C-alpha cells in the first residue's frame, strides 16, 4: 500500500519537489556510508598512541555536496536530458542539439586565444599571479586546448567517422614529429624540443602503444575466439624474459630474438591451451589466471636463471637494424653516423616507431585473419561451439591457434618491453596487468580494433595524464598526491563507460564478408563466448 501511495506522489510531484526528496535520501545514504570513512580517522599522536581524529567538517562538506549533486541532477539535469532528442544511438554520443550548443564558434575562438595567450606568458605567470594561480591557469590552458580540439573533431565528425582508421594511423605516425616540432618552436631550439619530447613520446606514446598491442593480442583470444584468458600477462613475461635472458647472455640481436620471443610465447600458449581446452567459462578463467601466477612464481623462484625478484638488467638496446646503435659510446652511434647532436630522444622516437610498427602488424594480421577461415572459425567458436563441430571444424586446433596467435603477439610486446626498459623483473607481470589489458579489451568493445585502441588511449593515457595534475597540490595541500587517485578514477571511468556503453566503445561488429553492402552487426546479436 505504501508503495502505491509513494508512486502516486511520484507522478504528481514536480521535479523540484522530487529532487528535494531524493537529495535528502542521497544525503542520508552518504552520511551512513561516510560517517566512519570520513567522519572518523585513526591517527597517531606524538607519543605514538592511536587516537581517533574527528573530521565532522569534511563529512558535512561531502554530504552536502552529494545532496546538491543529486538535487541538481534530478531537478535540472534529468528533465534537460529527457527534453533532448534521444542520444545518437549509433555512436552513443550526446544528442546533436546539445553538442552543437556546446561547441560554438565564439567559444572556440575564446579557447584558442586563451590557450595562445597562456602559452605565450607561461614563464612569466608565476611571477605575475603567484604559484597557486599559475598552476590553475595551466590547467585552464589544458582545458582550452582540449576544448578547441574537441570543437575541431566535432566540426569534422562526419569526415572523421568515415576515415577513422586512416586518420588514426596518420596521426600516430606523425605524432612524434609533431611533438618535436611543436616543442622545438616552443623552446626555440631543436635540442630543447627533442629533450622535451621524451615525456610525450615515451610516457604517453610508447606506453599507450604497448598496451594497444597487448590488448589487440588478447583480443584474438577473448574478443574473437571468446576464450576468457585472465593470465595473458604470462605470455608478455615469456617474451620479455626470452629477450632479456638470451639477449644479455648470448648477445643476440633484438631482430633475431623478436621472432624467438614470439615463438616461445606461442609455444607456451599451446602448452596452456592443451590442458584448458576442455574447460569453459569460469573454469577456463581460473586456470588461465593460475597459469599467469605460475609463470610469475617461476620467474621469482628460479633464481639461477632469472635472478629472482631482483630481475634481469643490462638488457641490450635495440639497434637500428644493425646499422646504427643508440649507445653514444659505440663507434656507429646514430649521432656519429648521421653527424647530429647527441640525444636520448632518438632512441625513444625509434622505439616509438618500432612499437607502432609491431602494433600495426598485430592489427594487420588480425584483420587479415578475420577474413580467412581460421578467423571466421574463431568467431564461430565464440558464437556456438557445438554448431562448429557439426560443420566439421576441429575446435581443438582452432582454439589452440587462437591461444598461440594471441600469445605470440604478447611475446612480441614482451620482447619490446624488455628492450625498452633495459630491465625486467617479475614485478612487471602481476595479475593487475592482465586485468588492465582485459579491461581495455572489454571497454573497447570485444573484437573491435579501433575501439580497443581508443580504450587503451583513454585508460593508459588518462592515468598518465593524472600525473600531470600537480597543481592540485596547491589546493589540497602538499600531501595530496593525485597519482594515488589514479586507480580510483580508472575504476570509476570504467563503471561509467560500462553503464553508458555496455558493449564497449565500439559495440558493433564488422562483418568479414558481404554480398551487397557491408552492414555493421549490432552488438545485441553477438555473443561473448563461454569458454
Amino acid at each position, binding site marked *: 500500500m505504501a508503495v502505491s501511495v509513494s508512486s502516486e506522489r511520484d507522478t504528481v510531484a514536480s521535479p523540484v519537489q522530487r529532487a528535494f526528496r531524493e537529495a535528502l535520501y542521497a544525503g542520508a545514504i552518504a552520511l551512513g556510508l561516510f560517517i566512519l570513512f570520513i567522519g572518523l580517522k585513526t591517527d597517531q599522536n606524538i607519543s605514538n598512541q592511536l587516537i581517533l581524529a574527528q573530521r565532522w567538517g569534511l563529512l558535512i562538506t561531502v554530504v552536502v555536496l552529494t545532496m546538491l549533486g543529486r538535487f541538481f541532477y534530478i531537478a535540472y539535469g534529468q528533465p534537460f536530458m529527457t527534453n533532448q532528442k534521444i542520444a545518437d544511438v549509433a555512436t552513443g554520443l550526446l544528442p546533436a542539439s546539445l553538442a552543437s550548443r556546446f561547441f560554438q564558434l565564439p567559444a572556440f575562438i575564446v579557447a584558442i586565444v586563451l590557450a595562445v595567450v597562456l602559452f605565450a606568458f607561461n614563464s612569466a605567470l608565476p611571477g605575475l599571479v603567484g604559484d597557486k594561480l599559475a598552476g590553475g591557469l595551466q590547467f585552464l590552458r589544458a582545458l582550452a586546448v582540449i576544448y578547441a580540439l574537441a570543437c575541431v573533431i566535432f566540426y569534422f565528425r562526419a569526415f572523421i567517422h568515415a576515415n577513422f582508421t586512416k586518420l588514426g594511423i596518420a596521426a600516430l605516425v606523425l605524432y612524434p614529429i609533431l611533438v618535436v616540432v611543436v616543442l622545438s618552436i616552443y623552446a626555440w631550439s631543436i635540442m630543447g624540443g627533442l629533450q622535451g619530447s621524451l615525456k610525450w613520446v615515451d610516457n604517453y606514446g610508447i606506453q599507450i602503444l604497448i598496451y594497444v598491442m597487448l590488448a589487440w593480442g588478447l583480443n584474438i583470444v577473448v574478443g574473437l575466439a571468446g576464450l576468457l584468458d585472465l593470465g595473458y600477462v604470462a605470455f608478455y613475461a615469456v617474451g620479455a624474459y626470452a629477450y632479456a635472458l638470451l639477449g644479455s647472455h648470448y648477445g643476440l640481436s633484438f631482430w633475431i630474438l623478436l621472432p624467438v620471443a614470439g615463438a616461445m610465447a606461442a609455444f607456451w600458449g599451446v602448452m596452456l591451451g592443451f590442458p584448458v581446452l*576442455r574447460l569453459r567459462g569460469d573454469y577456463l578463467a581460473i586456470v588461465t589466471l593460475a597459469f599467469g601466477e605460475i609463470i610469475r612464481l617461476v620467474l621469482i623462484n628460479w633464481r639461477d636463471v632469472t635472478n629472482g625478484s631482483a630481475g634481469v638488467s643490462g638488457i641490450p638496446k635495440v639497434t637500428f637494424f644493425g646499422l646504427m646503435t643508440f649507445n653514444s659510446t659505440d663507434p656507429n652511434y646514430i649521432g656519429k653516423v648521421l653527424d647530429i647532436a647527441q640525444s636520448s630522444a632518438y632512441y625513444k622516437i625509434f622505439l616509438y616507431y618500432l612499437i607502432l610498427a609491431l602494433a600495426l602488424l598485430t592489427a594487420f*594480421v588480425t584483420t*587479415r*585473419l578475420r577474413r*580467412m*577461415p*581460421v578467423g*571466421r*572459425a574463431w*568467431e*564461430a567458436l*565464440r*558464437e*556456438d561451439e*557445438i*554448431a*562448429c*563441430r*557439426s*560443420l*566439421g*571444424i*576441429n*575446435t581443438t586446433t582452432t582454439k589452440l*591457434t587462437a591461444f598461440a596467435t594471441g600469445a605470440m603477439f604478447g611475446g612480441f610486446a614482451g620482447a619490446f618491453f624488455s628492450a625498452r626498459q633495459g630491465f625486467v623483473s617479475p614485478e612487471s607481470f602481476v595479475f593487475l596487468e592482465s586485468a588492465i589489458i582485459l579491461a581495455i579489451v572489454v571497454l573497447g568493445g570485444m573484437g573491435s580494433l579501433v575501439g580497443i585502441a581508443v580504450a587503451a588511449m583513454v585508460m593508459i593515457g588518462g592515468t598518465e595524464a593524472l600525473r600531470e595534475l600537480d597543481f592540485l597540490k596547491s589546493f589540497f595541500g602538499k600531501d595530496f598526491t593525485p597519482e594515488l587517485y589514479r586507480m580510483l578514477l580508472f575504476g570509476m571511468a570504467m563503471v561509467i563507460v560500462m553503464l553508458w556503453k555496455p558493449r564497449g566503445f565500439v559495440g558493433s*561488429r564488422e*562483418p*568479414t*564478408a*558481404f*554480398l*551487397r*553492402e*557491408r*552492414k555493421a*552487426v*549490432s552488438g*545485441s*546479436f*553477438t*555473443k561473448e563466448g563461454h569458454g
Partner: protein
Amino acid sequence: MSANSMKDAILQVEHLSMKFGGLVAIGDLSFQAKRGEITALIGPNGAGKTTVFNCITGFYKPSEGMITLNGADGSSFLLERLPNHEIPARAKVARTFQNIRLFSGMTLLENLLVAQHNKLMKASGYTILGLLGIGGYRRASAESVELAKHWLEKADLVDRADDPAGDLPYGAQRRLEIARAMCTGPELLCLDEPAAGLNPKESAALNTLLMDIKSSTSILLIEHDMSVVMQISDHVVVLEYGRKISDGSPQSVRTDPRVIAAYLGVDDEEVETVLTEVGDEDVIEQLDIGPDTAHGPGTSSSYLAGPVSDTIGHSEGERVTVSKGASKAAQFDAKASVAPRKPTERATAKPPGKSPTSKPRGGRK
C-alpha cells in the same frame, strides 16, 4: 542383407544402443537409410530420436552397435569410430539441431562461409599461404561466396545475406541452418525437427527447400509434424522408448497398429481400459512410468553434454526403464494376444476421424 541393398543404403545402423547410466535411450536399433531418399525417424517425445542423431554425428559415442556410412565414391566409414568433427568433414554427414544453433552475431553469408571451413582452410594453405597472399585462396574464397549465394537463393534468403543471423524470423533461421549444413557439401543431411514451430507458410517454404535438396542429397529427418512426414518421406522408422516398433513406407507405418497404439491414436485411458479388461496387474502398476528424465538432462540440453565418457560408462546396475507397461506398442502386443481383432478394428476405424495428420499426443515440440 544382400550386397545390392548394402550398396543402396547410404546409412546403415546396426544394433545401436546408447545408455546413459542405467537409462537405455536407444536399445538395439537397426535401420537403413537409402541413397536419394528421405528417411523419416518418428516417435513420441523422449523416444531417443535426437540421441540417434547425436550418435550418427559423433556427439555421442554409442554404447554398442555399428553405424556405417557408404559414400558415393565407394568409400565407407564407421561413424562411431570417427572423431566428432571428422564426420561432417570426411564422411560428409551434416546435421541441424532441434534448438536452432546459428552463429547469431555473424551475417547469413558468414554463416555459410564458416560451413565451408575445411575446403577454404586447404585452399588457404592452412592460413599461412593465404596470409601471405599466395596460392589460390582468393579464387577459392570467391567460389565459396558463390556456393553460399546459391544456397541463400534456394532458401529464399538472399535479400538478407548481409544481416545478422540472429535477426531473422524463426522460419528463416530454420532454413538458414539447413542451407548452412548444405554448404558443407554433405551426402547425408540429418534434420532434427525442422518444421517445429513453423507457421503453415514457413512450413511450405521448408518443404520446397527439402524437395530441392532431395534431388542431390539423402535426408534423414526427425519430424513430429505428420503432414510433413507423410508428404515428403519415402521411408519411415518409428521409435518408442529407444526401440524400433515399425519400419516401412509411410502408408504401411500409418496403418501399423503398433504405431497407432504407440504414437497416433490410442489414449492412455483406452489402453488402461483394455489392459484392465485383460487383467494384467503387473502392467497396470507400471503404467505411469515414463522415461526417467531425472536421469539425464532434457532433450535440449542433451547436446550440451560434454564428452560421452561423462555420461556413459556406468553400466553396472543397469535400469531399463523400457518396461512393458510404459511402451504403448508393447501394450498393444499384450492386448493383441488376448483380443487380437479389437485394436486393429479400432485402428482402421480411427484414421478418418483422428487422422495421423493431427499433431501427436504430447507433441509439444
